């Protein structure tokens, strides 16, 4: 291995450490932090790491501050951008269940995100609660909404209006979700996933 290749291998390893281990309240690393640690041509290192991660079904995503993906960013935008690692392909239903999410919580999140999306990205919390309470008890709804807010899937302003948070924008294919709920995408063969509303309450820590 040439000196240059060895140096890149070292820097790729360092980039993986930076990106995998949570350093701030939010996951991910800012572009300027990567530049400071990996050097001026850090994007080359990120591309190499992305190729390696691709073999594992993972990818590096470059996001704006609010979570929207950045397409063809300028160097200045890259400095401010957030680099995160996420799954390249969606999870299977079985894997999603094993990751600690309760079916009811995911269903509540799906309903909430779809409801907010259909209302131009904002909806009153009490309207969302009213919708969710048709399927789940009030205390479950409250608990789930607070969890979604803490995890960054939602944000709330002082007037009780809910918006999609950075994590919803970063992790959810909004168009696909709406299409699936509207029944415009053929359902993929999934294993049965019965509701666990009546079952024991497992901790939801994705």
């Amino acid at each position, binding site marked *: 291995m040439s000196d240059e290749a060895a140096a890149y291998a070292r820097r790729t390893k360092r980039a993986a*450490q930076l990106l*995998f*281990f*949570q350093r701030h309240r939010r*996951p991910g690393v800012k572009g300027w932090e990567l530049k400071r640690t990996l050097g001026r041509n850090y994007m080359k290192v990120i591309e190499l790491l992305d190729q390696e991660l691709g073999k594992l079904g*993972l990818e590096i*995503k470059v996001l704006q501050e609010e979570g929207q993906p950045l397409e063809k960013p300028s160097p200045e935008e890259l400095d401010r951008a957030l680099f*995160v*690692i*996420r*799954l*390249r*392909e*969606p*999870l299977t*239903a079985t894997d*999603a269940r094993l*990751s600690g999410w309760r*079916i*009811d919580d*995911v*269903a509540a*999140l*799906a*309903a909430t995100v*779809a*409801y907010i*999306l*259909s*209302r*131009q990205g*904002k*909806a*009153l919390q009490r309207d969302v609660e009213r*919708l969710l309470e*048709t*399927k789940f008890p009030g205390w479950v709804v409250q608990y789930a909404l607070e969890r979604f807010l803490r995890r960054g899937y939602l944000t709330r302003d002082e*007037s009780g*209006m809910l918006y999609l948070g950075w994590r919803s924008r970063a*992790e*959810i*294919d*909004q*168009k*696909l*979700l*709406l299409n*699936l*709920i*509207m*029944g415009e*995408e053929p*359902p*993929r063969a*999934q294993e*049965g*996933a*019965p*509701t666990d*509303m009546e079952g024991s309450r497992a901790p939801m820590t994705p």
Partner: protein
Amino acid sequence: MPRTLDEGKRRERVLRLIQLCRTAVERGVDPFEVDVKDMLDLLNRYLPGWRDLDELSLDAEALNRLAAVIELQGNWIRYRCSLLYVDPLVVEFKVRALDASTLFNDFVRAWRPVLEYEQLSPQQIKEAVEYWNRLPSLAERLRRLPRAPWIRPSRMSLDEMLQLGVFSAQGFEQVLSELAAELRDRTEREGSVTYWGFIYSDTYEETVRRAYLTSFLITYGYARLELRGLDEEAYLRPTPAEGPSPEPQQPSSFAMPVDYETWLRLSEARRLE
């Protein structure tokens, strides 16, 4: 000049228009529910009849709110043309109709979670060990802190306490009653006085004291705080009854910052007068 019945009705109609626009913007309802053209015609008809500054401010506020609705209508059209548009009612119906299991499966297909490890990396452990080795003991760190001088407890006279403002020569209720009487005197002709005009005093300290006492006048129902016009200037109006009203109808709170810069500006303006 007292308002005629027509003027009162016109004013009420414009206030309703403002409220409608506000609801459309804040509640996210269909902005096309507001008939902008009709509202503009209405404002156009009323405009020649407005006389005082309050009415013109109301007209400007209504125009401002209508502009916000028009902006919302533009966004609404853009959104409806976008790929993400689906009828909200249909989505709500679908969500209600689907069971939790189907919603779960749909979500998982559209979800690609971000990965994060909440654990220490070898680098962090190395840094932590180095930090631990460099960190002096707690006793050592406490020894380095500057010590406050020890003051033996002693007696304080009433005069000293009055001087420090710990005690007041007058009872609080009496001070409030005097301030309420002053408010009634100063609003005898106009019915109200600007909040800053009332609390202002020659010194900033006294202005803050009057603001503090005025907040109690409002809380206890001796006075009402009204916000008027586009910039929501605050006015004080004494309550009609001699004593405090038994219970406010719609209790609400409003923060009134009494900052030094505003006091300085007022002080300068008064000096020039």
